[in-house]
């Protein structure tokens, strides 16, 4: 809706659509970081308002556990955020993306190995 309302938000966000935030496996989040994301934002419907009734309640628990776990591994908590934004809240979506982009920019690029196959000489 932000698009159809012609609202602008930073271009360096890559949107991965899922039918429900409950579809999000922590696997997707870690993979996103490994292929080069500096920050990962999950935007889900407000609790109580899930289109599929319960998906976001499950996601909420996963997020609560995943965020400190990523921090434990050396990925700053601030790089991973969960926001409740419904499909019709265009302005809020644009705001959330802007503020998250700013915060991640402040942290700088994520330091850590990315998924690149080593060459023969550096295969160790």
């Amino acid at each position, binding site marked *: 809706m932000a698009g159809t309302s012609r609202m602008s938000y930073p271009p360096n966000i890559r949107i991965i659509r899922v039918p429900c935030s409950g579809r999000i496996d*922590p*696997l997707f989040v*870690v*993979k996103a970081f*490994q292929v080069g994301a500096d920050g990962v934002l999950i935007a889900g419907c407000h*609790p*109580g308002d899930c289109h599929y009734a*319960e998906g976001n*309640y*499950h996601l*909420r*628990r*996963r*997020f*609560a*556990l*995943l*965020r*400190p*776990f990523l*921090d*434990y*591994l*050396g*990925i*700053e*908590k601030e790089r991973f955020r*969960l926001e*409740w934004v419904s499909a019709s809240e265009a302005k809020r979506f644009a705001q959330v993306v802007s503020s998250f982009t700013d915060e991640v920019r402040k942290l700088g690029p994520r*330091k*850590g*190995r*990315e*998924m*690149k*196959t*080593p060459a023969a000489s550096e295969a160790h």
Partner: protein
Amino acid sequence: MQMQEMQEKVRTKARELLQSGSVDCVIGYERATDGKTARPAFIYTADDIDRLIYDRTCVHNLAKYLLDRKDKTTAIVAKPCDSRSVNLLINEKQIVREKVYVIGTVCQGMPDVTWNQIGEENQERCQRCAQRTPVMYDYLIGEPADAVIPTFKDVEEMEGKDIADKRAFWQEQFSRCIRCHACRQFCPGCYCSECFVDQLDPTWVGIRKTTADNEMWNTIRAFHLAGRCIACNECERSCPVNIPLSLLNRKLEKDVGDMFEFQAGLDSEAAAPFATFKKDEHLKGVE
């Protein structure tokens, strides 16, 4: 009860179960080729009973083998940690309670054991173990001993480190991983018919074995065990390159305990924390 007496009771009960035909097989321990440590044993006839041993080198968690024998009746020798694994498998409907006969053994801890080498003191995981008595059993060997409050000092120490130090530590550990997947193969909680790491469509990790791929493997495996891992430590014990996997899994065990007041494997009927939710719960870190 002394180990010698425990061993006798294991043999007596196993003989009885096999002779009566109540079970097809007794999974226990026998002497390894080094002459001093134990290895898993599958006893199919009462004639082989004297192969069974029980001593302080019986560190293996035998529960996983029950998944190969779902349609047969099996007796299994289970320490307290192992009994929690059996509960987990029953809870997740992977095995049927009526097909398993648990010979539970009270345990005061066991040393680090590798082929031909027995450690002096109890393993670290035994030193901080919460159970001394199996949480479920059909026959108990040993006098029941009190449970102890589990501690997470090692996890807390890691949590307190600087983020750059944590990152450097784990990158170093994962750079050694050779992706043998022994951790997965020994884990009673890892039984997916297609593991995410082997999935090729889409390829989440696949066959490439760089540090980044290894990090994905180890961290997601740990997360898939959140609320299910009972810290039996088989993963860390079997790892050929000494990656401290328990330090990873127990971070989640601690957080699950704090957030949802839940410990895996204590109750075969309990609802798992990631299969349930409370509508108005306020979780730390979520607005």
